[in-house]
């Protein structure tokens, strides 16, 4: 081991009973920064992971659709063609639109999703999101399943009859024709855990959707479930290539369909990372400060090292290494502490909620009683690399000061 690494280790962790106070304080600062980064990034990753999972659980991993409002006119043939493509585990047609729902004196303009009850389960396990005791089997052509918050907004309960107005009805009015609103029975409610879906969505059968929007037998597109391990972008390209050009449709990975949303999620995560990184930067100032004190305290020793033949760049390396070692120890301890906190996260959150008596509020507003967590290797790698780089940089100024000391002057230092 080079002498400057050996001395750096010995100065940080001296032999004997002396407690390395300066080292402990410096390491503690980095530890807290890293632990907080791990916890926050993992919890944010957990929410992001849950949202992504919810999207793919309800929409499939690939959407096949035409550009704009192009309709797929022979959906059954195309559905069978898509289902036969390798890597495709399930396909279901869909039709979506906006409608007016009216119940008593309340109204709402939700997004209406027409689902094919024969095939939907091959793509999306909707029963998982439908509040018990109702199931998807309760949905027929004369009923609707409402998202939870939409039901609250309308004040509708199970079995209530609500009026449905589609855009087709307005178009008919312009042609001096009249279409009466359809009455749909509320067959159940669903909660997905995604504000956009839970706030303003209604599910009807595909047949009812085609009827209300005058689609005939056409659909807007297909949701595709892929076999486990399939990459959405690769599979989408494969599906597009396999489809007849005359069909006028293309396959898009779900990441394309939700690219803006995913970009916002990533932006939020990057911003949080950037802001929390300042904790590590502040800790690095503490490292710089204690190493500068060390340079002053050890001026004569630095002079001695020069007198013994140590070169300025080796003396500098000794102090830079100390910054790196503090960063390394802080990173290891911080990762350990972070993962312990993640392991105990639900107990901590519930303990705090219980302490302040807000357990029900938490369940009501966040719809969770458990904090999700998903730690990605990339996040951990980013945390480790940034921390080590910042800690090493923290040692640069003390290292520069130490390297500039002339042995003859350093040995005279009082």
């Amino acid at each position, binding site marked *: 081991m*080079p*002498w400057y690494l*050996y*001395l750096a280790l*010995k*100065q940080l962790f*001296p*032999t*004997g009973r002396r407690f390395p106070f300066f080292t402990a304080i410096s390491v503690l600062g980095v530890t807290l920064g890293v632990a907080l980064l791990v916890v926050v990034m993992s919890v944010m990753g957990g929410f992001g992971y849950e949202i992504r999972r919810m999207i793919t659980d309800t929409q499939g991993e690939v959407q096949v659709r035409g550009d704009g409002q192009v309709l797929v006119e022979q959906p059954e043939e195309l559905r069978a063609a898509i289902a036969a493509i390798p890597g495709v585990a399930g396909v279901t047609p869909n039709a979506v639109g906006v409608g007016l729902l009216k119940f008593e004196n309340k109204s709402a303009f939700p997004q209406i999703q027409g689902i094919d009850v024969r095939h939907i389960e091959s793509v999306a396990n909707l029963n998982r999101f439908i509040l018990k005791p109702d199931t998807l089997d309760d949905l027929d052509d004369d009923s609707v399943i409402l998202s939870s918050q939409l039901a609250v907004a309308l004040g509708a309960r199970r079995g209530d009859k609500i009026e449905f107005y589609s855009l087709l009805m307005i178009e008919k009015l312009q042609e001096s024709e009249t279409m009466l609103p359809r009455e749909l029975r509320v067959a159940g409610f669903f909660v997905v855990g995604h504000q956009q879906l839970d706030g303003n969505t209604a599910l009807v059968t595909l047949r009812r959707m085609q009827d209300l929007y005058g689609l005939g037998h056409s659909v807007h597109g297909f949701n595709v479930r892929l076999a486990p391990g399939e990459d959405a972008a690769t599979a989408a390209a494969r599906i597009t290539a396999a489809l007849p050009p005359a069909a006028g449709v293309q396959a898009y990975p779900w990441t394309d369909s939700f690219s803006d949303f995913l970009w916002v999620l990533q932006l939020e995560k990057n911003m949080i990372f950037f802001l929390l990184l300042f904790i590590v930067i502040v800790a690095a100032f503490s490292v710089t400060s204690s190493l500068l004190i060390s340079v002053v305290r050890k001026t*004569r*020793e630095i*002079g*001695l*090292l*020069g*007198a*013994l*033949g*140590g*070169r300025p760049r*080796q003396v500098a390396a000794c102090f830079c290494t100390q910054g790196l070692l503090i960063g390394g120890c802080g990173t290891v301890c911080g990762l350990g502490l972070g993962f312990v906190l993640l392991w105990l996260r639900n107990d901590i959150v519930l303990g705090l909620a219980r302490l302040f008596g807000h357990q029900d509020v938490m369940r009501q507003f966040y719809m969770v009683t458990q904090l999700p967590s998903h730690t990605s290797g990339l996040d951990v790698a980013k945390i480790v690399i940034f921390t080590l780089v910042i800690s090493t940089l923290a040692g640069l100024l003390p290292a520069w000061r130490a390297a500039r000391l*002339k*042995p*003859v002057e350093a*040995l005279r230092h009082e």
Partner: protein
Amino acid sequence: MSEHVLAATGLRKTYLSGDRRIEVLRGVDLAVAAGESVAIRGESGSGKSTLLNLLSGLDAPDIGSLRWAGRTPAADTRARFLGMVFQSFYLIPELDALANVLMAARILGVPGAAGRARAVELLAKVGLAGRATHLPTQLSGGERQRVAIARALMNSPRLILADEPTGNLDEATGDNVIALLLGLCAETQTALVLVTHNAAHAAKTSRQLFLHDGVLK
């Protein structure tokens, strides 16, 4: 005539103190042969330490020439050519006695096993075989200086420069340290330049010089 281990000719050194120029050394000539011990005495502030810094190559003279075994001094040969002993020992407090001695070899990159064996041998020679794992704070002043002497000898230098090595020691301990230093230098044919105030210690060397008015006499 054998080649001198150390040859200094016409060394001059001037310091600026405010607007004043203080000429500390005004042409010092010194030649030391292998195995020879030379004591340099002088009043406080006479420039003894300045001279030692010039002889060690840690500082450069304004005028004059210095040769180490006939060669121009260079920073990268210093560790192999000379060992230094200081008044304040300058042991590294985080390292035990053995590691302090070994540090001189580590800086040169000498392999561990051979270096370690020599460090153990040197500690035994300075009478500290049983204190190898003791930290400097657990050693007395005399023991610390003995560790420093072992460190100075670690790389088998041809010259040792000692700057008042007994200045922080009581008389009896100082006597022992000087006897040890002279004995080891004689045994290994290492030249010694000893800066001291102590006339008795100086008398034990093979040659005594006085630094007065910036000149060695």
